[in-house]
């Protein structure tokens, strides 16, 4: 394992082991096993920049590094993707994701 990323949706975080040379599609296939949602219904968004990650590109291409937080959104019934929804614990550390995961 070269690295891992943290994929977050609602109150759940998935730690996904990966390699910088893997594509976003590879990551979605790993997530498919965990969440039972086909890759077409998944969208991954880089939390630092709000950029939607493209299936064909690699993690390295899109500057996704070790310990990066990536938001997962799913396709809703009306075929649109839901908004990013990451619940944070309501404690003194609330601001930690705001600084773009610099730790």
């Amino acid at each position, binding site marked *: 394992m070269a690295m891992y990323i943290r994929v977050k949706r609602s109150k*759940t975080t998935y730690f996904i082991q990966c390699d910088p040379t893997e594509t976003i599609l590879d990551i979605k296939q790993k997530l498919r096993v965990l969440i039972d949602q086909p890759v077409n219904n998944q969208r991954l968004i880089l939390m630092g920049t709000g950029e939607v990650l493209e299936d064909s590109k690699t993690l390295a291409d899109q500057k996704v590094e070790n310990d990066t937080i990536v938001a997962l959104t799913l396709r809703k019934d009306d075929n649109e993707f839901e908004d990013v929804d990451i619940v944070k614990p309501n404690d003194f*550390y609330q601001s930690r994701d705001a600084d773009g995961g610099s730790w």
Partner: protein
Amino acid sequence: MKKEDTVKLISAEGFEFVIDKEAAMVSQTIRNMLTSPGSFAETEHGEVTFPEISTTILEKICQYFYWSLQYSRGKETDFHIEPELTLELMMAANYLHT
């Protein structure tokens, strides 16, 4: 990657962290729960609830598990701990034999 190879750790506030069993077993306590046959309900469902561990601390612990795996494979980086977390983190580490 298979679902059976992962385990879900649940914090005091009900936040869930899905991590590889391999990573979770960095903790001797979790290793015992997952490997002792039939003695823990956790073994069946692959879920462990920690009512005493806050979400922030549990996430830090999961990050530590992965850092520890990387370190053991020769990737020698530092593990950063915010000073205000140290006490709570030490108490959790003690409980988890980590």
